[in-house]
């Protein structure tokens, strides 16, 4: 099992039987074999302290208790509204910022039109490895905000704990670890509420993760949250390929703008949660050949800037406005998306890649580990609950 460095065996927490490394389920009793906790594994796995923002024990379950006073000066009642002006008390989840290290930061925001932030992010830095995870809760399924935070945190923890095992240039190692992170995120999404399996619409979310380190940039995804590679010089790329109806239409030859405006564009074909059929993330790895930015985002951003060159221009403009601090940039991009309409929750996570160009790098083939193929699942669902179409992408 990736990330377990103490030996070649894993002990089943349920029956005590030993299982081989890499086993996901106990051969004896069938129990799922839990992965290493970051606390247990990180010190062994790495001598470098992992930097992982801790949003608090409740961050994934409920928007923190409301603050005692409203902006108008009135008190906040137990029902979550101001006693004077009736404004809804801002909940912590409506706007969250993280910056675990100077070169990496993220902002998730409720946006303008939604009443709850169902996006979640989890960032981490361990040694020279940077981890970005973004999950977008499916708003038509209740409690997806809980699922998305649980999933993002779980995936981040797997990636931080397992990073030490990945060797220089080992794209396969990243892929395996990212797939494992996806499965673990799925477990967390399924466990986010007690009765998930009994629900008609169990909590669910998208998943996208990016790791930067060991001379590689690798990403994994399920759904339509994205990772872009935006080099300072060179061609910007969208590394992920949405599991969505729009992506299928584009694969069939429809231009991006038309596909993304189609009525079902936002219906996703793969996701995490109790009703997800296939939760093996697709992965991709690339070797950046110069400095640039890794951007992980939810559709709340790319609704307004989708094509990689458009995103690259947007980021360049933002750098011009606020400089190269990733926290300031994330904030600026979120504000931009909100100004453009803010129909959905917006999440932007950025990591600066500065390592020196790898001389005469041999190309790393895109590794699609355990690629489930291109057959979409029959079930489709939109991550948005509002019947409206998103604003057309900014020109």
């Amino acid at each position, binding site marked *: 099992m990736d990330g377990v460095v103490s030996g070649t065996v894993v002990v089943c927490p349920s029956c005590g039987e030993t299982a081989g490394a890499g086993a996901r389920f106990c051969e004896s009793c069938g129990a799922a074999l839990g992965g290493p906790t970051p606390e247990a594994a990180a010190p062994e796995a790495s001598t470098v302290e992992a930097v992982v923002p801790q949003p608090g024990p409740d961050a994934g379950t409920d928007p923190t208790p409301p603050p005692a006073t409203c902006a108008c000066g*009135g008190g906040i009642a137990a029902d979550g*509204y*101001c006693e004077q002006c009736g404004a809804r008390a801002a909940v912590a989840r409506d706007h969250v910022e993280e910056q675990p290290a100077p070169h990496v930061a993220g902002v998730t925001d409720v946006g303008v*039109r939604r009443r709850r932030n169902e996006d979640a992010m989890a960032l981490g830095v361990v040694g020279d490895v940077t981890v970005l995870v973004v999950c977008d809760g499916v708003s038509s399924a209740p409690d997806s905000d809980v699922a998305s935070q649980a999933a993002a945190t779980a995936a981040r923890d797997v990636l931080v704990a397992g990073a030490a095992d990945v060797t220089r240039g080992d794209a396969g190692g990243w892929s395996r670890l990212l797939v494992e992170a996806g499965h673990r995120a799925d477990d967390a999404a399924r466990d986010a509420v007690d009765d998930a399996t009994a629900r008609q619409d169990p909590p669910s979310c998208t998943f996208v993760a990016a790791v930067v380190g060991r001379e590689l940039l690798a990403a994994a995804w399920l759904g339509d949250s994205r990772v872009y590679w935006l080099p300072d010089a060179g061609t910007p790329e969208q590394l992920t390929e949405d599991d969505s109806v729009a992506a299928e239409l584009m694969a069939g030859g429809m231009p991006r703008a038309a596909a993304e405006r189609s009525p079902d564009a936002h219906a996703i074909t793969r996701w995490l949660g109790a009703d997800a059929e296939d939760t093996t993330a697709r992965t991709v790895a690339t070797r950046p050949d110069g400095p640039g930015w890794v951007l992980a985002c939810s559709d709340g951003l790319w609704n307004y800037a989708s094509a990689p060159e458009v995103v690259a221009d947007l980021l360049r403009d933002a750098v011009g406005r606020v400089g190269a601090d990733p926290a300031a940039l994330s904030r600026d991009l979120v504000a931009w998306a909100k100004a453009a309409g803010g129909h959905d929750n917006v999440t932007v996570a950025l990591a600066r890649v500065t390592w020196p160009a790898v001389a005469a790098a041999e190309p790393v083939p895109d590794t699609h580990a355990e690629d489930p193929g291109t057959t979409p699942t029959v079930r489709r669902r939109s991550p948005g609950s509002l*019947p409206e179409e998103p604003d057309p992408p900014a020109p």
Partner: protein
Amino acid sequence: MATFRAEVFQNEFLPDGGTDVHAIVTVSAEGVGAASTTGGGVAEIIMVDTSGSMTGAMLRAAKDAAQVAVDHIPDGTWFAIVSGSHVAQRVFPYPNAPVAIVQMEPAAREEAKRAIARLGAQGGTAMSTWLRLADQIFATQPAATQRHAILLTDGKNESEPRAQLTSTIRAVTGRFQCDARGVGERWQVDELREIATALLGTVELIADPEDIAADFKALLATSMSRGVADAQLRVWTPQGGQVLFVRQVAPTVEDLTSRRTQVTPLIGGYPTGAWADESRDYHVAVRVPSKNVGAEQLAARVQVAVADEVVASGLVKAAWSDDASLTARISPEVAHYTGQAELASAIQEGLAAKAAGDEATATVKLGRAVQLAAETGNEEATSKLRRVVEIEDEEHGTVRLKRGASRLDEMALDTASTKTSRVRR
């Protein structure tokens, strides 16, 4: 242990610039238990019309009904009997008794029935004197906080100006609850409605004197099932907001707007009287300053308070949206009760116009009533309307006034005008 619940039905979405929020709040009480008569907290007064018009059979029936009522007042309940004409007199406890009200026990019950049997009819009708005496009697027993009265009359309040009755009603409002009953066809619906509405009771027409006893028995059963002596409906609105109206809409339409008392500058209290295991619907309309599309806020907190403690709370929200599919929807509950409230006024205004000889207005109003009764599924109203108008086209509200409509039928329609049908969910 009584538990209250408040459920809100509304479309919270407002268009850009929208300010008015409507909601139906269903308040239900469960596990209330019976009124605690043995504890001495409950008092009952029966007022019987003994004016000269209460001739033989009518008086006999009224006396019989009062005796039946006495039989159904549980031991321990404070009670008194009042006879009313142009003056009011305490019949039991006897006028010369040292106390104005006594607790029910077997001997008192027998003596009270004897006193009722001796009642004779003479004089005019001045109901203000009846109400004032009842109030004075209740006041002698301050520990009995759950106070209920029944008023029975057969005639018009002819021995005093209407203003006298109105000012007395105002003076005793909030001091006791009163159900008003009119027997026969010579009483005035609007007079009894004024009493019953102010005193949180009901008004009914009893066409046949023989039915009075059964009605009294039912009234007492209802009164004694009310284990919560008094509950207050509270409406909080945000600073800068205002209450447009607060209206009970089920089981009957009663406008409570003008009965607001201030709890805090942002919270108004409205009386609802005693509660049994039951549910009542309220239509709350508030106006709040418009906000940006995408903003959400609380437009009202609708609460139920018993003995100054909030026991249930419902949230009425406002959310501004530019999505017409959201903002154009009208909550079916709000639509239903808006129609029912309009139905009540259409009936009352139609009958008033007819009585004033304005047949054109009467035809239009009663036609509208027929249309609304059909739309909102109020079958009782439809069947009562049918006795007063010939319906040509229900859907369009086309009617002709019935030539031979009896006064009793008109009174029955008028009396029942405020009764609403529940929204079908």
